[in-house]
Each structure stands twice: as structure tokens, then as C-alpha cells.
């Protein structure tokens, strides 16, 4: 049933709920960036931006590559697939419920009619 994947999805939702983190991801859609590149547009301190990046990394949305002293960050959209799956599973779930509701209402009205004619 619609329990869908994992804690990873939980973390994806949590990571995406914050506007700064969404802006960071947006930034990374243009290509890989280093931490200082990401901190600059928000005039954020490095520890503050690092905290957001850790959340994104835990959610699997960002990968970090160490190039000597420079940490380069790369976007990974695979957790988005889990989100897509969540949508698909719930869509099926509710379609099924509405099918059943439709059948139930037809039956109910038929019964009411029969009672009325009796």
C-alpha cells in the first residue's frame, strides 16, 4: 500500500521544506559549485551554509567531492524519483477509493429507489 519508500523520502520532504535549501538546489541546477560560491549570494556564513548542505547531503540531493581543500557540490535528483513514486502510489490509492465510492453511491441509490417503489 501507499507507505512508499523509506526514511529517505522523509528526509527529502524535510530538506525541500526550507526556502534557502531550495535556492541552493536551484543554484546547483546550473552546474557544480563550491561551498563559498553557494554562500556568497545569500551573504551567509560558511557554518550556516554548511548546515544546510549537510541536510541536503543526508537527503541524498547533493553529493560532495573533495578536490584538495576545495569541496565541490553536485546535484543528485534521484530522491526526486521517490517523490514521483509517492505521487503515483497515492494517485492509484485515491483513484481506487473514488471507484469504490462511485459503486457504493450507485448501489445506495438503487436501494433507495427500490424502497420507494415498495
Amino acid at each position, binding site marked *: *500500500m501507499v*507507505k*512508499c519508500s523509506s*526514511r529517505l*523520502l*522523509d528526509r527529502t*520532504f*524535510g530538506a*525541500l*521544506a526550507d*526556502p534557502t535549501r*531550495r535556492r541552493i*538546489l*536551484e543554484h546547483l*541546477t546550473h552546474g557544480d559549485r563550491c561551498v563559498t560560491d553557494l554562500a556568497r549570494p545569500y551573504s551567509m556564513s560558511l557554518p550556516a551554509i554548511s548546515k544546510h548542505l549537510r541536510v541536503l547531503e543526508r537527503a541524498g540531493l547533493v553529493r560532495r567531492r573533495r578536490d584538495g581543500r576545495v569541496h565541490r557540490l553536485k*546535484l*543528485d*535528483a*534521484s530522491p*526526486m*524519483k521517490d*517523490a*514521483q513514486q*509517492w*505521487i*503515483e502510489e*497515492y*494517485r492509484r490509492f*485515491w*483513484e*481506487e*477509493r*473514488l*471507484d*469504490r*465510492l*462511485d*459503486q*457504493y*453511491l*450507485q448501489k*445506495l*441509490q438503487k436501494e433507495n429507489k427500490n424502497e420507494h417503489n415498495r
Partner: protein
Amino acid sequence: MSTTDKTSTSELKLTVSRVLNAPCAMVYRAWAEPKQLSQWFSPQEVECKGLTAEVKPGGAFRIHMLSPTKGEHIAVGKYTEVVPNKRLRFTWSWEHYAMPESVVTVDFEDLGKTTRVTLTHTGLPDQEDVDQHTHGWTSLVEKFVKLMEQNKIKA
């Protein structure tokens, strides 16, 4: 008559809409009266073991489903908005399963002899987030999907 007019999957929320061949008050009661709800809420292969629902703002519901193939599942939530014949809104999660709470809104539109039911399920942790962030999140996901299609980022 039952048609699925609109099913949106391109956003991180989903909408399912149907025109049901029954008057609005009857359709609403099927959702708002627990006795009726238990008649149709489980898919056929699933037995509804127990259903409690206090349909009023702040009221809780608990739906216990038992399926021979999919096992035991308990859906729980709280009603946050109850407008007779117009709208039901409730939170949605699964007991014994750590997932963020999602929000379901069911709108009823009186079309005379028929009724349009539009169900929206949003997967954000709380309502405030839904109102504040839906736009930003949605456009970001659209961008992701586009980039994935262009194979610019790993999916």
C-alpha cells in the same frame, strides 16, 4: 457515470477529480458519516477491520485495513476543516510508520444531479508549509524533471 477529468502528476501534490452521479448532499454524507465511509473506503480485496471518525474540526479518524496480500495498515489523521457539502480537509499518516504527515483536501461541487469531487493530496509536513512553499517547491521539481529528461543531471 464516472469520469476522471483531471489527474495531475507533474507537481509534488496530486489532484484526482471525478463527477459522480449522485446529489452533493449524498456524496458528502458518504464521506462524513463513519458508517457510510466504512462501506466503501477499503478496496474490495481489503477488509476494513475498524473505522472510527469524528468528523469535526480537531476530530480524529483511524482506519484499520487488513489485506491478504498487503498486510495490515492503519491510516490515521485529524480533520482540520469541515464545511458540510463543500469541503473536508484532514491530515493523513500511517500508524507505526515514520512518515511526515500529509494533507488531504476533498472539495464537493454541487452540479445539480451530479457532484464533482476534487481530492488534493499534498505531501508537505504541515499546512503552513503548503501555503507558503507550494509554489517554490513545485517549480523546482518541474525544473528537475526537465533537466532529468535532458539528461543533464543524474536521476
